[in-house]
């Protein structure tokens, strides 16, 4: 009965070994396919929309529902906003804090989210950063082909 609940956790049965499934195949989409090729080539693409705005990373469609055109992003890149992660979701302190930034190229309207390798005292919105790509044979066509951003 609903009013007759067990209240001692030792009497309640758990199956702690069960986990959620997490294996999927993801296709990148039309623009994502082109971005994947560009990343493996050490380049970044954006999408130029009907209203002239350029967004990174490029989606297959624009926020205004128009189909944009792919353009190469050349930079320079600047730190727009940043945060520093000191703890994980469960409250454990990380061994090394992680700096995460919104890094906006001058030739786009928004920025990429990425890891920033810079001393905490040096972090300033507006500072110029550059993408550091992984060695070519380690690139997979996803965002981590850029290993991190660092000060110029």
């Amino acid at each position, binding site marked *: 009965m609903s009013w007759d609940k067990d209240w001692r956790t030792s009497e309640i049965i758990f199956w702690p070994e069960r986990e959620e499934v*997490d294996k999927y195949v*993801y296709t990148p989409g039309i623009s*994502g396919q082109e971005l994947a090729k560009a990343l493996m080539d050490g380049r970044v693409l954006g999408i130029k929309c009907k209203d002239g705005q350029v967004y990174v990373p490029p989606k297959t469609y624009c926020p205004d529902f128009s189909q944009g055109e792919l353009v190469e992003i050349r930079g320079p890149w600047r730190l727009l906003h940043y945060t520093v*992660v*000191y703890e994980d979701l*469960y409250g454990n302190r990380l061994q090394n804090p992680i700096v995460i930034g919104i890094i906006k190229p001058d030739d786009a309207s928004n920025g990429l989210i990425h890891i920033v390798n810079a001393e905490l005292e040096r972090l300033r919105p507006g500072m110029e950063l550059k993408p550091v790509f992984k060695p070519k044979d380690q690139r997979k066509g996803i*965002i981590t082909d850029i290993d991190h951003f660092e000060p110029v």
Partner: protein
Amino acid sequence: MSRVAIIGVGWYGFKPSTPEVHFQGMMFESSSRAYADANVDPRKDVDVFVDCQEDMWEGIAIADEFAPEPIGGALRPTFTVAGDGLLGVAHAYMLINSGLANVVAVEAHGKPSEIKTLNDIYYFAFDPLHLRPLPTGNPFFLAGLDAQAYMARTGTPRESLALVASKNRSQGLLNERAPYAARITLDDVLRAPYAIYPMSEYEISRFSDASVTVVLASEEVARKFTDRIVWLDGIGFNTEVGTGAVELHQWGRMPSMRQAALMAYKMARIEGSPSRYFSLAEVEDRFSFMELLALEETMIAPEGQAHVSLEAGDYDFNGPLPVNPSGGSLAMGIQLEATGLGRLVEAVLQLRGEAGQHQVKGARRALVASWRGVPSYTSAVAVLSSEVNS
């Protein structure tokens, strides 16, 4: 077009864990209480059932098929909304206002204590190719970016964020649904190390388990069941860019909440300053800065000025506009998709004069504003009123 009334609320949990019931059991508990509160028989009186849940939080695929029986909706019109409970209330409003239903029940629940891979599920909501693979350490980093952008844009000092945490966690001591309430001083918060810059652990809400059920009815039918009516005068909902394009979010703002508020205020015919219209506000505060941002996006405070009113004590329990007299999510926790409904319950109890030790005297009009949380940019806003207290 009928006015829409809230005629009953029921809840179960608001505890860090609830191992004594499974999630369906929790749904049954809150629904039994809501139907008793509203004095309705769900098998005869409720026309449509709305259930708010999300498969990954349940750990069950096609979890909507689990919805009907625990809320009394088997072989009755039942549907699910994969979103915050306040979005379910918006559906109820439409069903009643259009005349399609006279009585609608909305249930939402969250049982985060049982999700072994909570961190992974948050990351599972990120774009799989362009965001999820980054070694970011904590999915709530997105809130850190918004907090830093908000402070930079508005000049809000760090002390104001800390003050929100101190105010809400202390205020929650008077609320029986606030397991994370504690006497936390401003100094405690300021002395704590950053968890996610620019916020300490005191400023980031923890999780709690809860199920909440709300019963709504048309004006004519409502009066048959109860005289403790709370009116749902307006409700709005909106999504910004969605989590498929987090990079396009307007950092340091929550435009979806502003649009939801404009929609709700128009329905409620609120003209002039909303800050003078409400007796209390229950607004999103799962991160300290969000309370201030929510007050600005709902136009309670002018842009960038919420911290000035906060520091002046305007949002204190005894101030002109008590904000989160419940203690908010900082004291109550995050109950996943039940978070918004939990805050709606707080507002309903306040307007019925049944909020107990944290009752706001003479409460007649309440604002409820919810955000679905990281990594979403979806908000809902409700405007409530009642004559019960007058």
